[in-house]
């Protein structure tokens, strides 16, 4: 415990001395730094900050030092990159230091137009030809693929095997001319995802991660981590966000210091109590698991956390009324416009990384043991 306290003090001192002041406020979406060969730094402090953090190994604090990481214990940071778990030494040496230094930006190629919830039904083919795989197919929901340098993909390497058993996990350099991306415009107006097309892309056999046709194991592990991450989205307190009750008082009215509308007050209290109980459940699960892998419980957190987050945004709309329904321009404050966009974005929470319905299937099968 003392070690952790000491570490906390050192970290605080280092941050105080090294974090540029413009990096200490909530970051606008267009200033988020993703790194990569085509990295753009809108704010020059961002570049400085990335370099200082990377030098310290804190862009990837849990990775071992030999790959440019911070060397912290996995228990402290929990999330280990899949390459660390499944990659060969050559692969680790080739890719991890560049990720840590922010030199290469990655995206994920899982879903396909015909393989959403039924991810294992994916059709993108990788056919071994001499020293290469020849890759052909179509991925969708590839996050920021238009800015990414490399993509890690699930591909079909054995079309004759059962659908879970003919899948491999490979990494592909997107500089190949056969790779094409097209951003997808979402209901929120943003385009964080792309479609990515592969046409006769030649990928060295050495880019296979894990064994041939063993990709599903890696994919499942990645999805568990992704679910955990998405589940925590709703719990992250954004600096600029005001409490629901403050919004309700300000927009819908207050009486004797309380939210005047009793029905709205009830909904806010129910939301906050559920958030509290949810956070307590995450804490309890951590105490019970003592640092183990997320497992089947991650399905519950993914399901409940994302549904809670969606409910929170519906409630924000209810609190602020038509002021939260502006799209752009005059008549709305920046934080009001942001509510509308984030409300729309939140609808994806219960779809991406496995829909709520898929999570409920997992709980029913793996936790409750209900029959197929």
């Amino acid at each position, binding site marked *: 415990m003392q070690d952790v306290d000491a570490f906390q003090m050192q970290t605080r001192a280092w941050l105080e001395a090294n974090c540029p002041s413009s990096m200490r406020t909530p970051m606008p979406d267009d200033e988020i730094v993703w790194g990569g060969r085509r990295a753009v730094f809108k704010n020059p402090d961002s570049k400085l900050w990335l370099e200082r953090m990377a030098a310290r190994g804190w862009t990837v604090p849990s990775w071992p030092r030999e790959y440019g990481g911070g060397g912290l214990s996995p228990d402290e940071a929990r999330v280990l990159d899949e390459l660390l778990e499944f990659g060969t030494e050559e692969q680790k040496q080739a890719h991890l230091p560049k990720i840590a230094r922010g030199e290469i930006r990655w995206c994920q190629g899982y879903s396909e137009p015909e393989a959403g919830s039924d991810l294992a039904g994916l059709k993108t083919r990788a056919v071994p030809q001499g020293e290469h795989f020849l890759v052909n197919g179509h991925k969708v929901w590839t996050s920021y693929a238009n800015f990414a340098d490399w993509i890690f993909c699930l591909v079909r390497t054995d079309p004759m095997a059962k659908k879970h058993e003919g899948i491999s996990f490979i990494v592909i350099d997107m500089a190949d001319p056969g790779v094409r991306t097209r951003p997808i415009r979402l209901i929120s107006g943003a385009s964080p995802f792309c479609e990515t097309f592969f046409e006769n892309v030649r990928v060295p056999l050495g880019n296979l991660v894990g064994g041939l046709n063993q990709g599903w194991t890696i994919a499942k592990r990645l999805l568990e981590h992704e679910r955990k991450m998405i589940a925590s989205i709703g719990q992250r307190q954004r600096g600029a966000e005001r409490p629901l009750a403050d919004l309700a008082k300000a927009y819908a009215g207050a009486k004797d210091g*309380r939210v005047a509308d009793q029905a709205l007050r009830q909904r806010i*209290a129910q939301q906050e109590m559920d958030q509290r109980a949810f956070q*307590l459940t995450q804490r309890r699960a951590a105490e019970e698991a003592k640092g183990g892998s997320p497992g089947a419980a991650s399905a519950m957190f993914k399901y409940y956390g994302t549904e809670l987050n969606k409910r929170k945004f519906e409630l924000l709309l209810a609190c602020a009324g038509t002021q939260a329904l502006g799209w752009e321009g005059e008549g709305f404050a920046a934080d009001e416009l942001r509510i509308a966009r984030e409300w729309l974005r939140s609808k994806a929470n219960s779809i991406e990384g496995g829909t709520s319905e898929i999570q409920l299937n997992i709980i029913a099968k793996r936790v409750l043991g209900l029959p197929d």
Partner: protein
Amino acid sequence: MALTLDGDAALVRETALKFFRERAPVTALRKLRDEKDPTGFSTALWRDMAALGWAGFLVSEEYGGSDFGCVGLGQVLEAAGRTLAATPLISTALIGASAFSLAGSAAQKRAHLPALAGGERVVALALEEGTHHAPFRIATAARQSGNGWRLDGEKRFVLDGQVADLLIVAARTAGSRDEPQGITLFLVPGDAKGVVRTRTVMVDSRNAAVMRFNGIELGEDAVLGQVDAGAEILDRVLDRARAGLAAEMLGSACEAFERTVQYLKDRKQFGVPIGSFQALKHRAAQMFCEIELTRSAVIAALSALDAGDAGASRLASVAKAKAGEACFLVSNESVQMHGGIGMTDEHEVGFFLKRARVAQATFGDAAFHRDRYAALMGY
């Protein structure tokens, strides 16, 4: 604040689960109901529970208890909830012990706590006057009379009221209806002259009574705590009652849920187990989540009460509200998923539905606690 049990509490839990399964299964409640048992619980069972120390978990060693705490008592309550055991755990071990421990004078503690911890004295809190939990909506009046007080009024939904040896009566000594200020707690012997008690048979087959107080003469020593300052004691006692009852409700919800999941696996229609239908799977998984959240809220509230945390009241409201929602959901779904057999008196799932509604209404339903939580949070 730990959210998992330590070794001692885990041991209590194991002992209690076994005890209630063997000694007070749901068939015991059915028997009490069918035989119209006048006591409404088994005094022999209660003595044995006291012998295990459970009646004295909130009583200090000085007065014959173990001071084991709310987390420990919560384990016993949860186990009792699993079999719907009718016992004075809530009225006496939880509320009575808390009231004396938190507000009693040394003489009052000496007079009552050892007997309470020994399972020899049943205590009941006479609080409610309306149809909904409203701890400060009190019209029952105590007026100064000679060297003491004269008590008049009517209370309802007094848990274990018809058999209690001792009553703790919340009466108004000043102020007006709904005002916290001006409430005083009085100790009234159950058989005092002028006490008229009428048992009310509730759907859950557990004990409750309407009590009429007709000009009862009480001495100065009948006051528990300070005159006009009973609301503060009530708040603290009720927080324990809410968290403890939430633990009992958690146990009932778990049991009803587990029985229902088993039924989904066993019951076949269209040639397959009905648990293979996605419409039922998803609802079962949703219930699982609600129960998990309730479990976290309950253990957090009990731990916070033991630690004397400033946020314990808020957590008690979270626990009671979540337990209320979980019980509502699970009890309804259990009956629906059992289909026709769930509607029969012969099947036990109906007992869980009946207990759920009474427990939900006791010490505030989910709506009451949402409003209370909002008030505590400043909105």
